[in-house]
């Protein structure tokens, strides 16, 4: 792993900590207070704040996850050099596109 990838992965990880904590809290709070998924979605729809929140999360996780997949592939598969880079980019873009689509669908 190179310094840049390391840095990006750690920075995205650190930034995700509050986001995921919040996300988990929301889920837990929601199920505790008996809110249905529909009610949650109702609240998030159209909210710029939530759009930014989940948008940022998708961006971070795409970068973080893609670099992570690359690390694991470097150790556990015969992939080397450019093949690793390709895997990282493909995975990252895929995750980002799917995530963006989901955010779009949820927030509207």
């Amino acid at each position: 792993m190179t310094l840049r990838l390391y840095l990006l992965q750690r920075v995205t990880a650190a930034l995700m900590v509050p986001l995921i904590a919040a996300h988990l809290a929301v889920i837990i709070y929601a199920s505790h207070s008996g809110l249905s998924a529909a009610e949650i979605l109702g609240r998030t729809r159209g909210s710029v704040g939530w759009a930014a929140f989940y948008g940022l999360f998708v961006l971070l996780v795409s970068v973080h996850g893609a670099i992570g997949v690359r690390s694991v592939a470097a150790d556990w598969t015969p992939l080397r050099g450019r093949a690793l880079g390709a895997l990282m980019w493909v995975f990252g873009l895929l995750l980002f596109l799917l995530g963006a689509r989901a955010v779009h669908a949820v927030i509207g």
Partner: protein
Amino acid sequence: MSSLAQNQHNAAYRGDLFWIAAMIHRISGLLLACFLPLHFLALGLAIEGEATFDGFLKWTQQPLVKLAETGLVFLLAVHLFGGIRVLVIENLAWRPGQKRMASLAVGTAAVIAAIFILRLL
């Protein structure tokens, strides 16, 4: 040559707490990386497919989906605490005992998270 295969010699050090913690972190990350795209995909599909939320609501009630989502939340919690532990080791000054504390924290946090989540969903 790199491969998952062990060499022919016994590798008992792999039973150590820290090694297992590192592997749990890696595997949880990897599983997240596998399931998160599916989660996004399903989420997007489920909502877009219907004009209203009905479909989505119905969809989330399916036991399989419930289980999968629970699993995802669990993985996320485990990987989160494991990740914090790595970040702590890498970035804070090393104090004796800190490592045990960190790993214990992961363990208990993961267990609590698991129980909590399982009870809820």
